[in-house]
């Protein structure tokens, strides 16, 4: 029983007390970490969380390189000739298209595609409870599915075991990025990111503008060679005369034109029928599915409306709050280093309000203006974060030297529903085994309710084991 464990405070824990307090002091003096640093998906972040990219960035450098090299060759070798013989607008148009292509590409690559944050442990426990008790959510044991009606069409929602939630409609889990992405289209290696709800319009404008650019450059190069050959020389001579890079430019353009034009045409079809690549490939709404006529429940049955909605619709916000601060570490009441109690308190850390009495809640609601922002305390500390992005992921999983840590580490696989924003395992374990530290906290009511909370959510986690 917990009482016995409670009494058996590890003396090592007590001796760690001054160190833990010291560590806490040091930690408070350091800047609080931002949420992107503990993000569970396989993503890379730049500019302190402002830019997001998949860890498998694929051939994005190659894409950029091809575009820049081709355009560079075009501007260097074709433009002077064509400006002289045709019009000065050739490089202007080329320049505008090039800028548009590059900006669209960068926006597609570095925008959050619509990643859904993983479910908090409380949510996951609630969902598990509902599945177990009702039994009607699934008509057969794993894989877990839930059927809902969307516009009189039956749609199956799948349960995502990684994110611990039922995926909303049109959401899919990208295995490369290890994230659930809303309105998931596909993971594009050329762009180095998933294409989803938030960056589909950028992706579409990228491929359309790239089609125009490659066609334009191809046309200009052909014109150049034709004009040269018309000046009394044969075609072969014209090519030989012009710089040896011509074939490269031409070849790149020729091959890319077909693929890019094809892709643009395909995506124009998808946009017009309000489909995603994922749905089209899987044939989700194809009428060939058995005897049922499955129609796309999301279409507005008008090409123009579908296009407008997909491309000019409202821009949804990013749900993952990359630049928010992790909540300040709260002392955790569990006395023993038993790992059973630790995950619930990790969850409680995530929502600070749970550790306060109702009175405290009321006070904070009345006095604090940014109370609803619970997960990201609004007091940014200005100490600079000099941590390297690439080393960050390693640091978050670094085993901590504290006593409770080994049990925490063992806990990790089971409690993968751990909220992504409170990975401060080291601190949690230190506080959990230190009731003396708990009582040193300013408000006694705080400590009392925090302790009580220790009992409650355990049940929620049993099904997760």
């Amino acid at each position, binding site marked *: 029983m917990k009482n016995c464990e409670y009494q058996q405070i590890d003396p090592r824990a007590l001796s760690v007390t001054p160190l833990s307090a010291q560590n806490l002091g040091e930690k408070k003096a350091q800047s609080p970490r931002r949420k992107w640093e503990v993000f569970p998906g396989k993503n890379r972040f730049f500019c302190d969380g402002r830019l997001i990219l998949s860890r498998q960035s694929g051939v994005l450098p190659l894409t950029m390189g091809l575009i820049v090299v081709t355009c560079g060759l075009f501007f260097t070798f074709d433009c002077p000739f064509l400006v002289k013989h045709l019009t000065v607008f050739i490089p202007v148009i080329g320049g505008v298209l090039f800028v548009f292509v590059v900006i669209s590409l960068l926006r597609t690559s570095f925008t959050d595609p619509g990643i859904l944050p993983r479910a908090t442990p*409380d949510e996951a426990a609630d969902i598990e409870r509902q599945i177990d008790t009702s039994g009607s959510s699934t008509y057969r044991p794993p894989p877990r599915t839930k059927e809902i009606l969307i*516009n009189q069409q039956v749609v199956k929602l799948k349960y995502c075991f990684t994110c611990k939630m039922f995926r909303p409609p049109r959401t899919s889990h990208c295995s490369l990025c290890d994230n659930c992405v809303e309105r998931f289209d596909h993971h594009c290696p050329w762009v180095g990111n998933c294409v989803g709800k938030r960056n589909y319009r950028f992706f579409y404008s990228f491929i359309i503008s790239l089609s125009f650019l490659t066609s334009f450059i191809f046309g200009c190069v052909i014109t150049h060679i034709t004009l040269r050959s018309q000046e009394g020389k044969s075609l072969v001579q014209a090519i030989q005369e012009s710089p040896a890079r011509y074939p490269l430019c031409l070849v790149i353009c020729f091959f890319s034109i077909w693929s890019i034009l094809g892709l643009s045409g395909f995506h124009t079809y998808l946009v017009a029928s309000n489909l995603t690549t994922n749905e089209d490939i899987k044939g989700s709404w194809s009428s060939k599915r058995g005897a049922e006529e499955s129609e796309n429940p999301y279409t507005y049955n008008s090409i123009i409306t579908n296009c407008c909605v997909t491309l000019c619709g409202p821009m949804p916000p990013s749900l*993952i709050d990359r630049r928010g601060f992790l909540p300040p570490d709260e002392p955790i009441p569990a006395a023993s280093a038993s790992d059973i109690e630790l995950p619930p308190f990790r969850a409680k850390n995530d929502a600070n309000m749970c550790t306060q009495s109702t009175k405290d809640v009321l006070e904070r*609601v009345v006095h604090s203006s940014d109370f609803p922002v619970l997960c990201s305390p609004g007091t940014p500390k200005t100490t600079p974060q000099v941590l390297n992005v690439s080393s960050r992921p390693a640091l978050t999983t670094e085993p901590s030297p504290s006593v409770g840590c080994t049990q925490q580490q063992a806990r990790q696989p089971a409690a993968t529903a751990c909220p992504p924003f409170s990975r401060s395992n080291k601190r949690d374990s230190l506080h959990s085994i230190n009731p*003396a530290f708990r009582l040193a906290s300013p408000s006694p009511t705080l400590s009392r309710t925090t302790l009580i909370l220790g009992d409650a959510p355990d049940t929620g986690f049993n099904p997760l084991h």
Partner: protein
Amino acid sequence: MATEFHNLQELRHSPSLVTKVFIQRDYSEGTVCRFQTKFPSELDNRIERTLLEETVKTLNSYYAEAEKIGGQSYLEGCLACATAYIIFLCMETRYEKVLRKISGFIQEQNEKIYAPRGLLLTDPIERGMRVLEISVFEDRGSGGSSPSSTMSSGSSAR
């Protein structure tokens, strides 16, 4: 130290508990953001149905306003496309404006309606717009008044 342990042990038997109730999304109209107006049974004796339903309906209307496809959103989209989406860096989108209104609304609701009843709403944006989380607090003074079934089963499991 021993005294402290003793107090803490006593306090563990106090009935004050916390649970969370989740109101899930309603996908019957597609992928627009709507929450179910079905009243969760755990809150039966904590708050009147009409109040919670009113809150959820108002939230749904705010989200509908944010995601409304009409003249203004088209204008915003076309302008963004024309400026190669650079305008998103300078301007706050309509969705973001509505989200700020929503968080103000939730704070006001918490102050006026929910906190006096020992409940707390969490802004859905902090849960990835998946759920509307309602935290249920029990006053230590009221002592043992209808702890939720999960809690009682939890303590019996122990």
